[in-house]
C-alpha cells in the first residue's frame, strides 16, 4: 500500500494524465495536486487500494486521453500528440487509475478542487450564477463517490467499457471547474494554486516542449470559454457538476452554492452577452432587488420565437416549455417541473451521441444547456433544481455497459419514475394525510392556487365531508379566481375574498391549507407572495396552518427573509387591474413622475417556521423543525434509487 502511495505521489505525471485531455489551461493544476495527493487522508483511504487490479496498458490509455481531449476541447486543430508521450511516460499506471471510479473520485477530487476550484473562484461569478438555483453539484458528487466499486472493478476488467469511461472521466473533469465552493475554500485554493503555478514553471522546464507549452499559460481557461459559441459556453457553465470528488469534499459540498448576484457589475456584462433574451433595461428597478434578475415579460416572446433557428441546439420540446414559462402559460411548481422533465425526456429520446463523445458527458452538457435556456425564460424553482439534480445524477451513474438506446430508455424510465413517485404518488399520500385533518363543519382557508391543496379539497369533498372553503386571492396574480372556478364547478361551497380582508374572514376559519414552492431546511416556507401574511394572521387568530408540500421540494438552503432571494414579476402588472377600468391612476405619468416611482412585483415570500403548525408531506405530517432531517434522508434515498 505504501509503495503504491509512493508511486501515486510521483506527482505531475498523474495529474497531467488526468488534466491535459481537457484543456491546456489546466496544466498548472497537476502541480498543485501533487502535494495534495501525498497527504495522508487521501492515500490512506481504503478505496484507493482497490485500484490496483485495474491496470490497463498505457498506450491504450493515451489514445483514450487523446479522444477525450478532442471531444472536450472545442478548440480545433490543437496539437495534442506532443503531450501524449509525456503523459504516458510519467506514469501510465497512475493515469489508468482514472478508470476506476472510487479512487478517481478520491484523488481526482483533490486535484480538481485545487486547480479547478481556484480558477473557478474567479470564474464562477462571471458566468455561472445564473444557474445557481439549479446547481446540482452537491448531489452529483455524492453520486460519484457512492458509485459501487464492484461496477468499477468489472468495467475496469474489460478494456472497452474502460475506455469509454476514461473518456467520460476526461470530459467530466472539465465539469468540476464550475463547481462552487465557499469563500474560505476558494481562498485556500487560490493560494495553493499560486504555489502550484510556481511549481508548474519548474515542471515546464522539466517536461519539455509539449508539456511546457500549455503549462506556461495557466490562466488561459476563461478565453477558452469564449472560443465556443455563446450557447456552448452556457452549456459548459451549467455543468459544473463534479463527478470526481473525495468524501470530505462531498461533505463540504453539502453547502448550497451561493446564488448569482445580479448587482455584481463584473458579472453583468458577461451574462448579458451570453443571454438569449434581451435584458430589460434597468429603469425603475427597485434598489433593494438589484441582485435579482429582472423580469422578462412576454413581450420578448416573438423575439425568442424568431430566434428558434439560431438556437438549434435546443430541442423543440425544451424550447416549447421555455416559451411557455416566458409567456406565463405554465405556472405552479409541479406543473413546471413535470413539463420540464417531460421535455427533457423527449430530448433524451431524440438524442444520439455525437461521434467521439460519450453519452454520459455529452448528455449532461446538453441538459445543462437546456436548463440554462429555461433559466433565461424564467428562474427555476427549487423543486426544479432538485429534479435536474436528480436527472444529472442518473445520467452520471449510468452503467457504462449499457448501449446508447438502453441508456436512453433507462433515463426515460427514471424520469417517469421521478414524476410518478415524487410528484404524483406523493400528492396522493399527501391527500390521504391531509384529509384526516378535515372534519365536518370545518371552514378551510386557502391562498392563491395550489394544486395539492385543490386536490385535497376535492378529495375531502368526494369523501363526503361537509365543509366550506375560503379562497383568498391577491392582485396581481389573481390565481384564486381560477381555483374558485374549479371548486365551484365541483359543487364546493366557497367564500371568495382578497388578501386584505384576511383578518375579517379568519374569525370563522378552522384550518388554513397552504401550498409551498419550496421548504428550506430551517423550516422557512418559500411560497407565493402573501402566504406569509396569511400564515401570520392565522397564527394571530390561533388557527392551525397546514403546509402541503411534496418532499422533493425541500431544499437544504436556509433563508430568513424574502429579500435575499426571490423572483421579480412583471412590474407593469401592478398598475393594471383586470376587470377594473376605474383603476387607472398610474396611466399617464410624466417622465419626472416615472423617475421617482418604482413598481415592485415580488413573486415569493418566506414564511417563518413559527407560523407553521404542520407540514404535510409524502413522509407524513411533520413539524417544520423536521425539515432538515427529511432533506438529509431524502437526499440519500434518491441517490440510491
Amino acid at each position, binding site marked *: 500500500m505504501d509503495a503504491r502511495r509512493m508511486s501515486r505521489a510521483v506527482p505531475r505525471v498523474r495529474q497531467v494524465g488526468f488534466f491535459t485531455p481537457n484543456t491546456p489551461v489546466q496544466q498548472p493544476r497537476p502541480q498543485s495536486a501533487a502535494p495534495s495527493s501525498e497527504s495522508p487522508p487521501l492515500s490512506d483511504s481504503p478505496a484507493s487500494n482497490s485500484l490496483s487490479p485495474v491496470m490497463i496498458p498505457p498506450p491504450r490509455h493515451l489514445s483514450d486521453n487523446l479522444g477525450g481531449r478532442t471531444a472536450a476541447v472545442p478548440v480545433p486543430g490543437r496539437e495534442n500528440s506532443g503531450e501524449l508521450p509525456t503523459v504516458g511516460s510519467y506514469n501510465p499506471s497512475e493515469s489508468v487509475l482514472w478508470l476506476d471510479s472510487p479512487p478517481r473520485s478520491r484523488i481526482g477530487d483533490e486535484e480538481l478542487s485545487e486547480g479547478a476550484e481556484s480558477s473557478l473562484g474567479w470564474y464562477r461569478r462571471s458566468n455561472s450564477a445564473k444557474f445557481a438555483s439549479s446547481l446540482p453539484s452537491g448531489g452529483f458528487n455524492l453520486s460519484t463517490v457512492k458509485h459501487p466499486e464492484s461496477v468499477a472493478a468489472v468495467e475496469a476488467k474489460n478494456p472497452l467499457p474502460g475506455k469509454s469511461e476514461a473518456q467520460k472521466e476526461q470530459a467530466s473533469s472539465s465539469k468540476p471547474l464550475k463547481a462552487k465552493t465557499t469563500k474560505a475554500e476558494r481562498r485556500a485554493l487560490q493560494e495553493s494554486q499560486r504555489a502550484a503555478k510556481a511549481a508548474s514553471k519548474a515542471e515546464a522546464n522539466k517536461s519539455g516542449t509539449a508539456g511546457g507549452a500549455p503549462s506556461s499559460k495557466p490562466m488561459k481557461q476563461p478565453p477558452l470559454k469564449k472560443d465556443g459559441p455563446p450557447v456552448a459556453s452556457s452549456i459548459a457553465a451549467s455543468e459544473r457538476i463534479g463527478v470526481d470528488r473525495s468524501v470530505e469534499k462531498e461533505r463540504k459540498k453539502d453547502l448550497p452554492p451561493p446564488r448569482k448576484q445580479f448587482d455584481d457589475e463584473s458579472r453583468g456584462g458577461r451574462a448579458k452577452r451570453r443571454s438569449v433574451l434581451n435584458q430589460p433595461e434597468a429603469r425603475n428597478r427597485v434598489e433593494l432587488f438589484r441582485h435579482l434578475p429582472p423580469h422578462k415579460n412576454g413581450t420578448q416572446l416573438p423575439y425568442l420565437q424568431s430566434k428558434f433557428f439560431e438556437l438549434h441546439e435546443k430541442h423543440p420540446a425544451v424550447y416549447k416549455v421555455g416559451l411557455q414559462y416566458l409567456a406565463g402559460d405554465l405556472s405552479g411548481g409541479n406543473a413546471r417541473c413535470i413539463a420540464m422533465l417531460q421535455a427533457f425526456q423527449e430530448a433524451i429520446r431524440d438524442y444520439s451521441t455525437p461521434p467521439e463523445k460519450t453519452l454520459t458527458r455529452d448528455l449532461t452538457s446538453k441538459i445543462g444547456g437546456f436548463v440554462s435556456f429555461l433559466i433565461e425564460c424564467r428562474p427555476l424553482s427549487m423543486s426544479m433544481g432538485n429534479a435536474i439534480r436528480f436527472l444529472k445524477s442518473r445520467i452520471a451513474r449510468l452503467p457504462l455497459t449499457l448501449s446508447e438506446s438502453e441508456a436512453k430508455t433507462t433515463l426515460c424510465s427514471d424520469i417517469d419514475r421521478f414524476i410518478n413517485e415524487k410528484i404524483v404518488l406523493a400528492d396522493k399520500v399527501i391527500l390521504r394525510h391531509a384529509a384526516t385533518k378535515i372534519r365536518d363543519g370545518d371552514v378551510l382557508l386557502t391562498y392563491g392556487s395550489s394544486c395539492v391543496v385543490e386536490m385535497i379539497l376535492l378529495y375531502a369533498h368526494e369523501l363526503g365531508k361537509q365543509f366550506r372553503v375560503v379562497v383568498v*386571492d391577491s392582485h396581481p396574480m389573481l390565481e384564486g379566481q381560477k381555483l374558485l372556478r374549479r371548486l365551484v364547478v365541483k359543487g364546493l*361551497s366557497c367564500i371568495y375574498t382578497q388578501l386584505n*380582508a384576511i383578518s375579517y374572514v379568519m374569525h370563522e376559519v378552522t384550518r388554513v391549507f397552504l401550498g409551498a414552492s419550496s421548504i428550506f431546511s430551517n423550516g422557512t416556507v418559500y411560497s*407565493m407572495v402573501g402566504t406569509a401574511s396569511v400564515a401570520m394572521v392565522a397564527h394571530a387568530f390561533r388557527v392551525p396552518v397546514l403546509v402541503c408540500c411534496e418532499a422533493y421540494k425541500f431544499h437544504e438552503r436556509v433563508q430568513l427573509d*424574502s429579500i435575499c432571494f426571490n423572483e421579480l414579476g412583471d412590474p407593469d402588472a401592478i398598475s393594471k387591474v383586470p376587470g377594473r377600468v376605474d383603476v387607472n391612476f398610474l396611466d399617464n405619468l410624466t417622465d419626472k413622475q*416615472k423617475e421617482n416611482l418604482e413598481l415592485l412585483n415580488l413573486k415569493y415570500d418566506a414564511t417563518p417556521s413559527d407560523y407553521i403548525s404542520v407540514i404535510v408531506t409524502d413522509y407524513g405530517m411533520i413539524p417544520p423543525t423536521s425539515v432538515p432531517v427529511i432533506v438529509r434522508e431524502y437526499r440519500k434515498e434518491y441517490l440510491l434509487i
Partner: protein
Amino acid sequence: MPDTQALVNDFLNKLKKRKIEGSQATAKQTAELLRSVISQTRMPYTNQAAALIHSVKAVGERLIAANPVELAVGNVVRRVLHIVREEDLSLTTAAMAGLNLSAESDDEDDTDRDNHPALSAAAIAAASRSTLRPPSLQTLLEDVPDSAAVPHTSSSGGDSEGKSKSADKSSRSRKLKHDVIEAVNELIQDISTCHELIAEQAVEHIHQNEVILTLGSSRTVLEFLCAAKEKKRSFRVFVAEGAPRYQGHLLAKELVTRGLQTTLITDSAVFAMISRVNMVIVGAHAVMANGGVIAPVGLNMVALAAQKHAVPFVVLAGSHKLCPLYPHHPEVLLNELRSPSELLDFGEFSDCLDFGSGIGAPLLHVVNPTFDYVPPKLVSLFITDTGGHNPSYMYRLIADYYSADDLVLERRTTSGN
C-alpha cells in the same frame, strides 16, 4: 325650518348611499349641517340649552342611523352637543357672576369688570363642569382659554341686565345661539385644518433615510409625508396598493408628483418588505376609546407584520376621528361590506352557478369588507392634532372632547329635560 329639513334629508340620502367619502368630509359636512340646524332652531324662553340639545340630538340620531359605520358623524354630533352644554354652562355661570358683581360694585372700570367676573365665572364654571365630566389634566389646565370667552358675555349680560329682565333673557338666548354657532364654526375650522396640525409634527418622527410603509391612501398621510419632505428630509416610501380599491396607486402618484422616492408594492408583499421598513404610518377611519383603530381593510395584517418585526406602527388621526365608544366585535359590527363587483365581475361566475335549482344557499359568497379593526396593542403611537399619544391614553383624550351624557345618543331620556 323647512329648508333645514331639506338639507337634512339631502345629507341623509348622501350618507345612506355612501356618497360621501372620507371621514373628514363627512365630519365637516355634518358640522355644517348641525350649524344650520342650530341657527334655525326656535329658542324658547326657558331652558334654551335643552331645546338646542334636543334639536341637535334629533337630527344627529337620524344622521347616525343613516350610516352607523361612519363614526365621524356621531363624533361631530357629540362634539356639537358638548359645545352647547359648555356654552350654556359658561353663560349661566357668567350671568350668575354678573348678578353678584353688579350688586356688589356698580360702576367700575372696564378692565376691572372684565377681570373680576372672569375669574369668578371661571371658578364656578370649573366647579360645575366637573359634575359634567370627570376631571382631567387638560380640563384643569385649559380652563383659562375657556373662560376667556366668559368676560365678553358677562359684560354684555351686565349691560343688558340693568335694562329689563325680559331683554336680558332674549339677549341671553341670542347670545347662547350665537356662541354655539361660533364654537361650531371653530370646530369646522379645526376639522379642516387638522391635516396641517398633524403634518407639523412630521419632522419629529421622520428623519433622514427612513423607509416608511403605508397602505392605501389617506390625505393625512400624504400631507404628513410631504411636510417632512418639505423640511428637506429625504426618505423612501413603500406604498401598498390597498386592494380592492387600489387607492395606493393614487397616493403613489401624488407622492411622486411631489418628488418623493416611492415604491408601489402589492399588499401581499407587505410581509416580505416590512423587514426593511423603519416605520409604518397609516391613516385611520376612526379611533375608538380603547385605543383600537377602525382602519381601511388590510391594516390589521400590516400591523401584525409590523409587530412581528418590531416596526413602529403609527396612526395619524384628526380629533374628529376620535370616537368615545368602546368597540364590541368591531370587525363585524363596525364594518361594511362593499360590492362584490370590486373583486369579481358580475356574471363572471354565472356560468358555473346554478341558480335555477333554487335549493339552499348559493355556493359562492364574495366577502369585501371596508374596514379592519386594529387592536390597541398593535398600535405604537397615535398622532392627532393635539400631539402624539399612546393608545392607552385615548380614553382620556376623548373625555376632553365629549360630554359623558352624550355617549349614548339613542336614548332620548338622557337629555335631561
